[in-house]
């Protein structure tokens, strides 16, 4: 689709071009420095001792022998981490307890102690010398079992919020919430067809290739530095400082290059402990999680159990829809089911809708955000049921979705009325896409599904510094997780009227910029893009003033065009334009260095929709499934750098396909994770996937100067359902549990034939 510039009335010069990314050379040559790539003189190796039990009381913890081992410089337990700094804040206390068990281990892999030693060999020896006396406690790892009346209750301080009357007994259900409008009972009475189905999804990990890693360096004067792989170094600074009782301004946090985060690096795991070890040892401490630790003790997404009911008339109008979303959030309360309930029916225009959520605590690692957190599972359940209803009515699934799609003015299932949105256009594009018309072969099936994500803005701070030769440094505080340095450089170049190559973007550390929220909620290019636009326009004001000073004319008689200051009017016809480089070369005579900056809240992120098409081939002998063709169609608002928009579309689809077919945390009856490694927890690799085709639609977000919407998360929402619908169509049996692994397909086929 051609870019719609009507609402901005702009013609872009470099926005929308596919320039080379500024971090590309460093990444392909190995020069890029990730979390594990920092070193400091005298640094120690930090390592963790983790619980082998799903739930256990720590009766005795003796670190004395470890402390005496030569080469050990510090040992940390919860006794070194007083909760007084948390000020009674339950969320901070939970973070602290998750980083280091306090009296009880709450899941397999929960940290119980940490050591800092001169080398890894010594650290490992020290861990073996720590003596712990555990008393095993009853555990529960399944969300439905955890909701049963006879389930072991994990916390005596968790009471279900959102039910009346308020409970007087603790429960594993931390929150019940309900959304919707209309009268669903009346709606179901109007329906000619009602389909009700239950679904389950396995717990998955974001699978970022780079494990959590950091280098902590605390000084005896209370100041410190943290080099870390993170999606939000300001948030890491604030959290670490709060729970360790440090002065925020004295803790400088620098974000390394990031080898994937996808939400998993929005929470602290090892970082406060690395700082505590460094403080105790008075030496720098480097901690790098093993892959096993990443699986057992960082933050995967929820496993879920979801019921969906949809009623529709013969002519294809949905009359009522309900969902009940039960999400396990790991060992601490979260709001993951609530998000699932909010997103359940977001793509549809429904008169009667009700979604209910139950957030449930289990003996699993604390759940963290994972790319459009909670939405893919709800979409799997809803979009599978939508297909079933269409099938029952004899209506093409895409026509059924088009008939019921939300549009501008629709009241969303989570409350507000939509402004301009892109679900209808993505469905229209899917319907007319050549993929939809391609013939299928034997044992092949096609499925499609829709997805939604909110997108966020948030606090953002950006600075532009002009160098003496007219090149420009752009400092942003949102970590670049997917090419944002390229897109933000394009925005800076567009505004200043200079070539892209003249801009060098950096991620500023916490001492260099004012606070920035994390790169989450698909906000990087949206929020820092807006901040960059304002900062650039402020820079131009300074540049115009300097030109006016040099020309000895009023600034009102200067305009900025094509990267140059122009003196306006007949009286100045003799004045040649002054380029940015010419103005920058004489700053000492016109008022000093030139910079522009902006600090603001980037609210007004536009919601995002996508439609995906998936073809699979299933081997009926083995149950093995191959995705043979996949197409992503998504509304980007305005694609600043189309390559990286497409990259986000493809990346989300690839992760979703892995989730749909292969990935799953498998717990034994003992509550221990049985597959904490990439050999047994298999994420898709290139040879598992076809080239993922993409189509960018541009329905501008009226709240952004260029119309940008976030694009990073929505693409992971439809794949679970798209793959499930494709497999179900290929084998002729509805698949209701993700991952749709070969044993599950064979079991479904056997059950059908029996």
């Amino acid at each position, binding site marked *: 689709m051609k870019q719609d510039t009507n609402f901005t009335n702009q013609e872009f010069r470099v926005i929308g071009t596919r320039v080379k990314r500024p971090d590309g050379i460093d990444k392909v040559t190995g020069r890029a420095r990730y979390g594990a790539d920092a070193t400091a003189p005298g640094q120690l190796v930090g390592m963790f001792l983790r619980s082998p039990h799903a739930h256990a009381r720590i009766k005795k913890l003796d670190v004395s022998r470890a402390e005496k081992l030569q080469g050990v410089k510090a040992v940390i337990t919860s006794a070194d981490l007083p909760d007084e700094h948390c000020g009674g804040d339950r969320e901070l206390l939970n973070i602290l307890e998750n980083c280091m068990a306090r009296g009880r281990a709450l899941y397999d892999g929960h940290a119980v102690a940490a050591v800092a030693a001169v080398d890894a060999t010594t650290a490992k020896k020290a861990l073996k010398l720590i003596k712990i006396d555990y008393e095993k406690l009853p555990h529960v790892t399944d969300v439905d079992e955890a909701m049963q009346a006879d389930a072991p209750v994990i916390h005596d301080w968790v009471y279900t*919020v*959102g039910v*009346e009357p308020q409970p007087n007994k603790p429960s594993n259900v931390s*929150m*019940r*919430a*309900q*959304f919707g409008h209309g009268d669903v009972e009346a709606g179901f009475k109007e329906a000619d067809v009602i389909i009700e189905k239950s679904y389950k999804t396995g717990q998955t990990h*974001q699978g970022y290739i780079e494990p959590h890693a950091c280098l902590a360096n605390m000084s005896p004067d209370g100041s410190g530095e943290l080099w870390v792989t993170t999606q939000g170094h300001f948030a890491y600074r604030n959290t670490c400082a709060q729970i360790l009782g440090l002065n925020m301004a004295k803790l400088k946090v620098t974000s390394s290059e990031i080898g994937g985060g*996808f*939400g*998993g690096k*929005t929470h602290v795991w090892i970082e406060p402990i690395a700082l505590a070890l460094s403080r105790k040892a008075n030496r720098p401490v480097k901690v790098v999680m093993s892959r096993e630790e990443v699986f057992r003790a960082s933050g995967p997404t929820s496993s879920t159990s979801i019921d969906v009911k949809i009623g529709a008339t013969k002519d294809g109008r949905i009359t009522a829809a309900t969902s009940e979303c039960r999400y396990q959030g790991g060992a601490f309360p979260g*709001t993951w089911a*609530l*998000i699932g*309930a*909010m997103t359940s029916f977001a793509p549809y225009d429904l008169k009667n809708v009700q979604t209910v*959520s139950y957030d449930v605590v289990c003996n699993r690692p604390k759940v963290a*955000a*994972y*790319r*459009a*957190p909670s939405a893919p599972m709800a979409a799997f359940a809803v979009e599978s049921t939508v297909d079933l209803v269409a099938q029952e009515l004899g209506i093409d699934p895409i026509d059924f979705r088009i008939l019921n799609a939300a549009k501008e003015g629709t009241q969303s299932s*989570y*409350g*507000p*009325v*939509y*402004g301009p949105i892109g679900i209808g256009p993505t469905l229209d594009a899917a319907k007319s896409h050549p993929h939809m018309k391609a013939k299928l072969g034997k044992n092949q099936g096609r499925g499609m599904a829709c997805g939604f*994500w*909110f*997108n*966020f*803005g*948030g*606090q953002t701070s950006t600075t532009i510094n002009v160098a003496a030769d007219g090149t420009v440094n752009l400092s942003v505080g949102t970590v670049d997780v997917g090419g944002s340095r390229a897109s933000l450089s394009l925005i800076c170049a567009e505004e200043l009227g200079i070539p892209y190559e003249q801009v060098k973007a950096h991620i500023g550390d916490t001492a260099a910029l004012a606070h920035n929220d994390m790169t*989450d*909620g*698909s*906000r990087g290019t949206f929020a820092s893009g807006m901040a960059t636009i304002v900062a650039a326009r402020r820079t131009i004001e300074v540049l115009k003033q300097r030109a006016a000073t040099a020309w000895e004319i009023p600034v009102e008689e200067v305009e900025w065009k094509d990267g140059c200051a122009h003196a306006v009017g007949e009286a100045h016809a003799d004045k040649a334009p002054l380029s940015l480089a010419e103005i920058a070369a004489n700053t000492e005579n016109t008022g000093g260095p030139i910079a522009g900056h902006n600090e603001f*809240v980037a*609210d*007004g*992120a536009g919601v995002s929709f996508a439609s995906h098409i998936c073809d699979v081939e299933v081997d009926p002998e083995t149950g093995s499934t191959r995705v043979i063709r996949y197409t992503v169609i998504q509304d980007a608002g305005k694609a600043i750098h189309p390559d990286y928009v497409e990259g986000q579309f493809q990346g989300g689809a690839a992760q979703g396909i892995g989730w749909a077919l292969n990935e799953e945390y498998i717990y034994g009856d003992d509550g221990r994770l049985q597959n904490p490694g990439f050999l047994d927890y298999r994420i898709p690799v290139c040879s598992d996937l076809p080239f993922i085709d993409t189509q960018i639609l541009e329905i501008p977000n009226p*709240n952004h100067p260029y119309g940008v919407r976030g694009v990073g*998360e929505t693409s992971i929402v439809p794949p679970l359902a798209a793959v499930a619908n494709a497999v179900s169509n290929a084998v002729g049996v509805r698949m209701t549990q993700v991952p749709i692994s070969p044993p599950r397909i064979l079991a479904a086929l056997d059950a059908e034939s029996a």
Partner: protein
Amino acid sequence: MQVKLTGPLRSAAGGQASVEVEASTIRELFRKLCEQYPGFQAHMDNGVAVAINGDVFRDEWSTVIPEGAEVFLLPRIQGG
């Protein structure tokens, strides 16, 4: 104006789906809600977002609420 409450936020107003509050900015709206419904403060501590005519505002409390606007309060949620 009518302020619509979604999800768990209704518990602060005795389960009501909407409440009447006169406010010209998000800041004034939150202040008056906490005055009228003391239970609302607990939700504020967890985070509340405001949708004004469909646009969601999470942080900018100086945002002006136009007369006749559709106002929804939502739980503030996380992204990835």
